[in-house]
């Protein structure tokens, strides 16, 4: 198992290096006149030349690209994400609490997606061809066609505006988490439900399920104890990839619900041309995604007895 984890970690290193370089490109590709534009209101004509030179020096823009990348990599390795161009505060301070908020939203949405996706997927596999299956199929295709931001607005209208059950905007408390988590979770449950259905169908047709029936075990027990663990193994690998969808979805949902996460900030920062913030957010999100998939892979290896642990 240790060897497996080590091997898997080694494979991750070039990917992380690639992510680092890709985020570096964001800064490198940004036209420097953007920087100019940022400061145009703040310095006088005469001082502009000097100010620009100072800025370029400060952000290493006057060095060749490989030196820029090297110093960027070193700084990131030291945990220094730079400072926000707009607020001049350290990026880590700007995004720290927001990162936690985004993780809370993503986690809650994952919970919703897994609960809804697994239940509907299992039900439609078990009652294949029934009205439940047909309905789940119809809802599923609507789910993958529904833009998350519009669905969020629909939920806001019904639960916030009409019924006044839940707050429509805000961050932090549990009540304001419900709507964004539901929005994101329900949208992402659609693909999960389909995957669950197909892997459950596959498992339910296996010989060992027939053998379990011949043992006189109850249907509920067979589905939950005998079929589900087998199906979960193949679902698990997909859930890892789905975290990417959830994380990206969270970025959009945060804007809809005014949830103070890194997504909301990233969107603003792109508008502000605050590239250090954008860069840092994309870097840590991608790293989070890669780490989650690493954990999922290890979980999978641990959970499947057929994989040799030794």
């Amino acid at each position, binding site marked *: 198992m240790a060897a497996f984890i080590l091997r898997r970690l080694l494979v991750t290193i070039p990917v992380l290096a690639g992510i680092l370089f890709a985020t570096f490109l964001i800064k490198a590709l940004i036209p420097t006149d953007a920087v100019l534009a940022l400061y145009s209101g703040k310095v006088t004509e005469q001082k502009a030349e000097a100010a620009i030179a100072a800025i370029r020096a400060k952000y290493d823009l006057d060095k060749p690209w490989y030196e820029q990348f090297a110093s960027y990599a070193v700084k990131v390795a030291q945990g220094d994400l730079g400072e926000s161009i707009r607020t001049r505060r350290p990026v880590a301070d700007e995004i720290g609490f927001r990162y936690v908020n985004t993780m809370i939203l993503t986690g809650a949405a994952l919970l919703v997606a897994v609960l809804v996706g697994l239940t509907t997927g299992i039900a439609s596999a078990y009652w294949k061809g029934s009205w439940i299956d047909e309905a789940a199929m119809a809802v599923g295709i609507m789910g993958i066609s529904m833009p998350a931001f519009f669905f969020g607005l629909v939920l806001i209208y019904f639960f916030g505006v009409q019924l006044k059950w839940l707050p429509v905007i805000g961050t932090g408390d549990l009540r304001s988490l419900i709507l964004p988590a539901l929005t994101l979770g329900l949208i992402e449950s659609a693909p999960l439900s389909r995957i669950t259905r197909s892997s459950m169908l596959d498992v339910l047709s*296996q*010989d*060992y399920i*027939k*053998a*379990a*029936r*011949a*043992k*006189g*075990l*109850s249907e509920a*027990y067979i589905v939950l*104890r*005998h079929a589900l*663990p*087998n199906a979960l*193994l193949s679902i698990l690998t997909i859930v890892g990839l789905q975290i990417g969808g959830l994380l990206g979805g969270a970025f959009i949902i945060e804007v809809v619900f005014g949830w103070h996460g890194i997504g909301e900030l990233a969107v603003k920062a792109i508008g502000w041309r605050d590239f250090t913030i954008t860069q840092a957010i994309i870097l840590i999100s991608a790293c989070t995604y890669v780490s989650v998939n690493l954990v999922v892979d290890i979980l999978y290896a641990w*959970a*499947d*007895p*057929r994989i040799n642990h030794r």
Partner: protein
Amino acid sequence: MTALSSPMHSSASPAAPIAPVIEVRGLRTHFTGETGIIRAVDGVDLHVRAGECLGLVGESGCGKTITALSLVRLVSPPGRIAAGEILYDGRDLVKASEADLLALRGDRISMIFQQPKASLNPVIQIGWQVAELFCHHRGMARRAAWLEAVELLKAVGLPAAERKALAYPHELSGGQAQRVMIAMALALKPRLLIADEPTTALDVTVQAQILHLLRGLCRDFGTALILVTHDLGVVAETADRVAVMYAGQIVETADVVPLFAQPAHPYTRGLLHSMPVQGRRRDRLDAIPGSVPPPGLTMAGCRFAPRCSFAFERCHAEPPPLVGLPDGRQARCWLAIPEPTRSRSHSDDVARPGQPD
């Protein structure tokens, strides 16, 4: 045919007048497909007594597996039992509620399947797969059930049972997996065990051991055994009585010794001829020309007639009934019917396959 000298046959034949554990009457299992109804099992009668072993023999596709699954009502849609009675303990299982069946399956009536490794859940330790029977049917605590399971695994001859109980199915050999299946099937000392090709997927060397184990345990527990197989060698070694199936019907039943000595149906005769002789393995049915009619086909006369070298006019025109012969034997062949009852028969001068050559 050395197996004929096996001592197993003496116990159950001639048939003692004890009530059968299970009695099947006129069982019909149909599959509704796009092309119409397929009569996979088309009017099967059989019974088996406590401690007795009935061999249900036939080629692939003759309906023997579907018959076996029908007995515990495990035929999956679009298959369904269209007619007949399955009498167990005075109850008709065809009409029994799903709850009653759940209580019977695995407890009073159990099954063993052809692919032992595929029949074990890959992600559950084999000990638990045995133990869950005790939890489920006997309400035992997990710990006690586990200990019971380990004992049972020892009883079926699994080496290092305590350790192996923690193993997953992929860590077992085919023979070991089938021992586990046998342990599961006999865990609760059922009254009936249906074994569907229990040794087909196994090594030839392991086959005999497994059959011996199965037969011995069934006899110890007084469990009736229905052994579904295409392999007459297996039948000869294990069964007391044999029912030969062809195209969804039983064409002959007899005790094992007379059946091998004097087959009454031309099909049985063909099967016997196709057995491997003196270690030389022949293709399963090269003694019988042609192949099994597709199950959807409806035929006017005897279903075996197109392949039968003894067939005459009547065989093609009129389906023969399953008639009782002396010694409690039965055969579905116009030629097997004794002279007086064969009143409508026109040509009597054809060779009688039932007679010794």
